[in-house]
């Protein structure tokens, strides 16, 4: 939420979760939302996929990889549907992810991700296939040029809302941007009978 580290270009191996419609209840089940901070949620990211009821590990790829080597999550269609919980991007980032890729990413999850520096990348089904068919590959994501480069050299562009992109590239703080508009906000309230 506060000033963030600028995000620009990085390369990393991917990890593939092929399931479609991974909702935010899967990313972080509601019973972990009683926290009053953002810290440490990576250990419960995909909790019910990774652990049994008694807390022991299930055989799951997220328990087997080194998160510092796998910064890019490639998921099935319609990633992040459901609840508006910002705990979902917090948990993914705390686990180690810097970007998520899908053929479709739900609105609120996308907005929440951008505000935290987790880059949502929407790709065509063809590119998605190329990613999932080589799930060990290393990709490069460049926000300046909005490009994703696969291991086979294929480079595609992706869309990021212009203001969100600027915030991420330059570390602009969205709350600060709004706070700078307080004179206009006050004028609006006065004109529209909404002053306190």
């Amino acid at each position, binding site marked *: *939420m*506060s000033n963030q580290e600028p995000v620009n270009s990085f390369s990393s191996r991917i990890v593939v979760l092929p*399931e*479609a*419609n991974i*909702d935010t*209840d*899967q990313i972080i*089940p*509601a*019973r972990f*939302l*009683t*926290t*009053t*901070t*953002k810290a440490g949620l990576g250990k419960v990211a995909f909790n*019910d996929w990774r652990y049994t*009821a008694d807390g022991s590990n299930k055989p799951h790829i997220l328990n087997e990889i080194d998160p510092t080597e796998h910064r890019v999550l490639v998921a099935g*269609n*319609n990633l992040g*549907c*459901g*609840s*508006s*919980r*910002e705990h979902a991007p917090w948990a993914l980032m705390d686990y180690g992810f810097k970007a998520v890729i899908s053929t*479709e990413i*739900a*609105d*609120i999850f996308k*907005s*929440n991700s951008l*505000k*935290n520096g987790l880059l949502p990348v929407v790709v065509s089904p063809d590119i998605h296939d190329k990613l999932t068919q080589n799930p060990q590959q290393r990709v490069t994501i460049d926000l300046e040029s909005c490009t994703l480069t696969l291991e086979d050299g294929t480079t595609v562009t992706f869309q990021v*809302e*212009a*203001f969100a992109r*600027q915030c991420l590239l330059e570390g602009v703080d*969205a*709350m600060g*941007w*709004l*706070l700078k*508009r*307080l004179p*206009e*906000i006050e004028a*609006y*309230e006065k004109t*529209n009978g*909404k002053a*306190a």
Partner: protein
Amino acid sequence: MSKPKSLFEKVWERHIVEEEGADKPAVLYIDLHLVHEVTSPQAFSELDARGLKVRRPDRTFATLDHSIPTLAPDADGNRPYVTAQAKKQVETLEANAAKNGLRLFGYDAENRGVVHVIGPEMGLTQPGFTVVCGDSHTSTHGAFGCIAFGIGTSEVGHVLATQCLAQRKPKTMRINITGALQPGVTGKDVALTVINTLGFSGGTGYALEYAGPVIEALDMEGRMTVCNLSIEAGARCGMIAPDQKTVEWLRGREYVPQGAAFDEAAAQWLTLKSDDGAVFDKEITIDGSAIEPMATWGTSPDQGAPIVRGVPVAANEDEERALKYMGFTGGEAREVEKVDVVFIGSCTNGRMADLRAAAAIMKGRKVAPGVRALIVPGSEWVRVEAEKEGLHNIFLEAGAEWRLPGCSMCIAMNGDFVLPGQLAVSTSNRNFEGRQGPGSRTVLASPATAAASAIAGHVADPRQFMQLESA
């Protein structure tokens, strides 16, 4: 002649502080900000870190609903929190509200309840408003002609600090529902049909407007249920034009203008409806006369079907996976689905009309052996009204549990949950894997269907328990 405008455009334009451009979003003014304990603590921390206070405490209202127990306190007044952390979360909101001078509808407030139930109930929600809350079902308030949508915690902070959000204007879609509903078909069945028609992401990027004779004929509770589920088709918000029904429903409520000022406001509200000739980015039509009582069979709210048609056969891998999780084979009748739990409540269906519909079916009947039925009113006001009408006695005599208001088993973070493997028929909004507890299986349906399923012990069409007038 000015260009005809849609309901959405009229409300949007009235809230623009600064126009959007190619490289910047619009600054959108927010009339009403509702806050609850789960998605707010980190936003208040952000304000603290910047030395800020809530800018408009008069437009910010807080309630306790997600983490709180629905069981009564013990003899010493201790509330049975699921964890110490849940208690701490509630205390954190109490402290943040006190520090910022916010009105908090706390434990002892007669208005406490689920955020999307109490907003309209008190008349905080008014036609033409922009309404936000850190909760995706904020779309509920669209039933009153509001642009109402869920936001994340960062944006909760933005609104607390500035009363504004940086937003891009969404596309618009009108959903016309023609004809008339058959007897025994409710707003929830309409909503599940709409989501099934649009698909889980068919509404992504759109503000929906629901219109047509079926919507006009729905009561306000039914309209709230329809708007509530807009997010389940991926839409940012869903709206319905205010009409005389909206006006009469709001008249006399605590926070609406009173006396002559109310009639003045109401006259304005009635001008918000979409102009003839208003253009939408997309329009679809659904035959309302063909809608039947619906139940979901999968793990996404769009995976629903009329109960009488049974469980569909999987059409693709996603549906196969969903059926497997649910323990269904596909092609079977719904009667084979033995029910373990029935949950009636939530921001989707926890209002008086919902409880009355459930009680009409449970009256004089018993919950089937082995079924646990939990009835959770959406607010203190609903609880008190229901008890005045004796609905709680109908539920208790049927063998159901009658709880205190809260989100309860819909989101299963307060200790009310469905056990692994159990099948629940729920009037809530999401049937995701494990939503109602790890390993839980959820069938979404209307209050009437949930009540009928509790009595029958399997997923049941409620019309078999209704005295239906011939249409």
